């Protein structure tokens, strides 16, 4: 298992050709209190940099962008009733999707943890 980070402040935890995806603690702090998450459905396919959801905080709406090409294989449905979990445990229980990665070579464009830490300063 390896965790990668995107410049859009997502993390992706890769296990073989599947992965779990969510937003980083830093993203959650910047968003403030999350009140609504619009998620796509299992089976939806997406391309890298495509919009795969919207996270609304009390302040504003922010799009969620796909870090790689892939397909949604599981949606964290607990977020519908408890969007605030994204503030409490964004890198744990409040994952957003499980996905199937279409092109593992795209992971090379992402950052590792120390790279991401440097990126957010």
């Amino acid at each position: 298992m390896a965790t990668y980070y995107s410049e859009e402040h997502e993390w992706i935890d890769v296990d073989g050709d599947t992965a779990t995806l969510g937003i980083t603690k830093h993203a959650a702090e910047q968003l403030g209190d999350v009140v609504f998450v619009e998620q796509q459905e299992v089976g939806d396919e997406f391309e890298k940099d495509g919009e795969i959801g919207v996270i609304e905080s009390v302040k504003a709406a922010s799009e969620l962008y796909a870090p790689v090409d892939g397909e949604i294989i599981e949606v964290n449905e607990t977020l519908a009733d408890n969007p605030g979990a994204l503030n409490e445990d964004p890198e744990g229980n409040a994952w957003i999707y499980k996905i199937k990665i279409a092109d593992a070579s795209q992971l090379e464009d992402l950052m590792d943890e120390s790279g991401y830490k440097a990126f957010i300063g």
Partner: protein
Amino acid sequence: MTDVKRTPLYDLHVELGGKMVDFAGWEMPVQYPMGIMGEHKQCREKAALFDVSHMGQVILSGEDVGEKLEALCPQAYATLKDGKARYGFFTNAEGGIMDDLIVSNAGDHFFVVVNAALRHQDIPHMQANLDGVEVIEIFDRALVAVQGPSAEDVVGSLCPAARDLKFMETTVAEINGVECRISRLGYTGEDGYEISIPEDKATDITRAFLAHEDCEPAGLGARDSLRLEAGLCLYGNDIDQTTSPIEASLGWAIQKRRKEEGGFPGADRIQRELAEGPARKLVGIKPEGRAPARQGVEIQSAEGTTIGQITSGGFGPTVGGPVAMGYVATGHAQPGETVNLIIRGKPQPAQIVALPFVTQNYKR
């Protein structure tokens, strides 16, 4: 960035962990570490303190100030009693709203508070049109709002005279030996005060309020969600130069004599809309789902025709769900009417509801 201004409380905001943003040319806290949701609830349950020093504080002195203001505003300011404050607005010749404001009769002068972004418009407007009135913009006083059910205790424990004020009353009293103007009003739907404090004492007095166990600082984020739940208009969102007070459901703020007599800018349109009803109306809108509907979202009738637009919208922490306000064609303005909000291209069902979303809690 052009010359962003700071209020006398700037250093305190930073010390308290305020997240500073540019708002109408002022560097203001949008939230503190508690977060918008927490600050909102703090205000509804106990007391929250807001720095509103960016707003324009103006002194009007001279003869018959109230009467002269009636030439610019549809409010009955000639009969505003000493010690009373009244919400109002400047109207333009087309009956639109130039700005909304609070006017207080302070005895030997009138005290006016206008929106931060419109100071540069309102001050010259008054100077040009209030003949024989001296219009003095105050730059050396902070304005602090303490709002919430505990506000009377927070302010009253330092200033007993504050307890005797009723909603929309104003007085001058000492707080820690400093003369302040204290008005019982606000922009949250809760009981509370706005206090005008000399700038060099503002931080000390603010710290004294915050020392009360029920009082926490709150930023512009909570101020917006609080006023939205309370059904209070935000200038630039819900009201502007094109919206009339009648469309904006602000007819309550025009007193009977002024409605009958007219004699203010745009009286033709305003009196006509009073008699015949406006073509569109500002209403409360409650989305049925959880998705917030924000400013600019299109409103469609159940049949799919466009009937209006959201002017303010977001999440209401006290309501526990999304809330919004917007203009709809008058035929669709009845509470209970089902409409669709087009959020990211998809229709989301919502209901027209009576404002406010939460019961106003004023001390009358």
